[in-house]
């Protein structure tokens, strides 16, 4: 079975992120890392192979040169090989353009299961897994905090905690799944893993390799545009009081003045 894990190299979510003048994320302003939420996807793919699913695990990323770091980190955790799609004409792509590039690369490689994180920690739309499923014409079984694959009956089953109910869902393979940060802690790469990762194959592809016309991707193909970006004004510092025995009474007075009581 072929498992493809989509990973993204993103500006560190714990740093102060900013925009460039064209309304895209300023990627030079802060260090980039493997998106934390993608580590759970890597972990789940590796656990599937360790639980007896006979599979080759391939990591896939789209991005400039340094996006390879996300692949190396993933390979250091485990897995077999990686694909890096890099092309100047991809810069500025929206989720639709990104999902097109990912889908073409996945089709070219072949797949039984695509594993994604629940969202990236930069765009955080969480829509790429569903877009991939739509483009690949397969089921999406998303937002899982538990995942099981049966090669015998060709299905993937998972548990999703929705807004109003916990749902067990099942899709037929091939399928796209996404996993949450509740699916299980991601392992740290071992020294051995880091050394082994250096020898694992990383294939680099551009848009020509994927039969994608340059005008289908990038900022000019994006179907939405940012008009303005503004740093949220910091909240005006409120009234902070030390409790000297009447803290609750004072708070009640504040809530009453605000008409919450």
């Amino acid at each position, binding site marked *: 079975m072929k498992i493809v894990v989509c990973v993204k190299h993103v500006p560190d979510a714990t740093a102060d992120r900013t925009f460039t003048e064209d309304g895209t994320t300023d990627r030079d302003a802060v260090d980039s890392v493997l998106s934390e939420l993608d580590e759970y996807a890597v972990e789940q793919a590796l656990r599937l192979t360790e639980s007896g699913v006979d599979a080759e695990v391939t990591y896939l990323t789209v991005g400039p040169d340094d996006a390879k770091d996300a692949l190396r980190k993933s390979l250091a955790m485990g897995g077999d090989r990686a694909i890096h799609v890099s092309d100047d004409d991809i810069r500025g792509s929206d989720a639709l353009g990104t999902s097109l590039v990912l889908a073409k690369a996945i089709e070219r490689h072949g797949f039984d299961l695509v594993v994604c994180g629940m969202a990236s920690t930069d765009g955080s739309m969480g*829509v790429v897994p569903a877009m991939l499923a739509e483009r690949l014409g397969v089921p999406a*079984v998303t937002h899982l905090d538990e995942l099981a694959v049966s090669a015998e009956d060709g299905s993937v089953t998972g548990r999703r905690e929705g807004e*109003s*109910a916990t749902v067990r869902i099942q899709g037929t393979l091939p399928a796209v799944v996404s996993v949450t940060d509740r699916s299980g802690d991601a392992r740290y790469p071992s020294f051995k893993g880091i050394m082994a990762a250096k020898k694992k194959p990383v294939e680099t592809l551009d848009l020509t390799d994927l039969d994608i016309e340059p005008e289908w991707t990038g900022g000019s193909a*994006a179907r*939405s545009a*940012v008009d303005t*970006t503004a740093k949220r004004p910091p909240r005006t510092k409120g*009234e902070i*009081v030390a409790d000297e025995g009447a803290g609750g009474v004072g708070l009640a007075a504040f809530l009453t003045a605000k008409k919450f009581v």
Partner: protein
Amino acid sequence: MAEILVLVDHVDGTVRKPTLELLTLARRLGEPSAVFLGPGADAATDVLGTYGAQKVYVVDAPEVAEHLVTPAVDALAQIAASSGPGAVLLPSSLDGKETAARLAVRLESGLITDAVDITADQDGRPVTEQSVFAATYQVTAHVTEGVPVITVKPNATAPEPAPATPVVEKVDVTFGPTATATRVLSRTPRVGGDRPELTEADVVVSGGRGVNGAENFAIIEALADSLGAAVGASRAAVDAGWYPHSHQVGQTGTQVSPQLYVAAGISGAIQHRAGMQTSKTIVAVNKDADAPIFELADYGVVGDLFKVLPQLVEEIDRRRG
């Protein structure tokens, strides 16, 4: 005026509040048409009309009830093809966002998710406002190609009635081959008791590490009940097993935007702030005067939540007589 399609979020015909907010926003852009999937449309039509739906498209097919997302995409794509809407609005729920994602690909349209407001530009086209980078930036954006597909966060606006008598149109949808490829095996509804749902609540009272134990969440619940609030929890409290994950407020939990957010025993790590800092009024109670949550608070009490909260509940009761 353009038709604006609104996907109805409902439980067996009981329309959920975010849908009423979508109808309210849709009226700024054109004539709202509700798209109702599954059984229970008769019960829902009145309330959809009360909030301005001029039309209700009804798709009552077994595919919709038994399978996730893709049947809704088939239905919306088909209705959009015949009605040529000015926009499609969906709730920013898991299913809503996934439906929107597939629909945008299907319609070759631009997609905007998690809008916190929508206005019309001079040509009536939607301009969205989003809150990004852990709610540190406000972004306005618009769709440049196709039918704008927009998901809107709960509490983006207050639902405003605008009574209409909707035309009901039953639609037979031709479902595609993937419509039935994802099945719901079981569904366990959340036992929420009498408290409002976290995403929809006007007031949220959350507890964190400082609550120090599952049994102490009774203090958080008592204040929540006193204020008619939903109960939230920080990731620390959830990871410690003190409160269910379904109540986690934060970047990877539920993102809330209530009128009032009360943070008790929560220090305010960035992941938590990302999930609550668009709340209109924020109140914090924490022993640590240096806790980052106080930077956001409109009113903060540096003190022991085990003393402050019970006193607060008592004082609220006293003021209410």
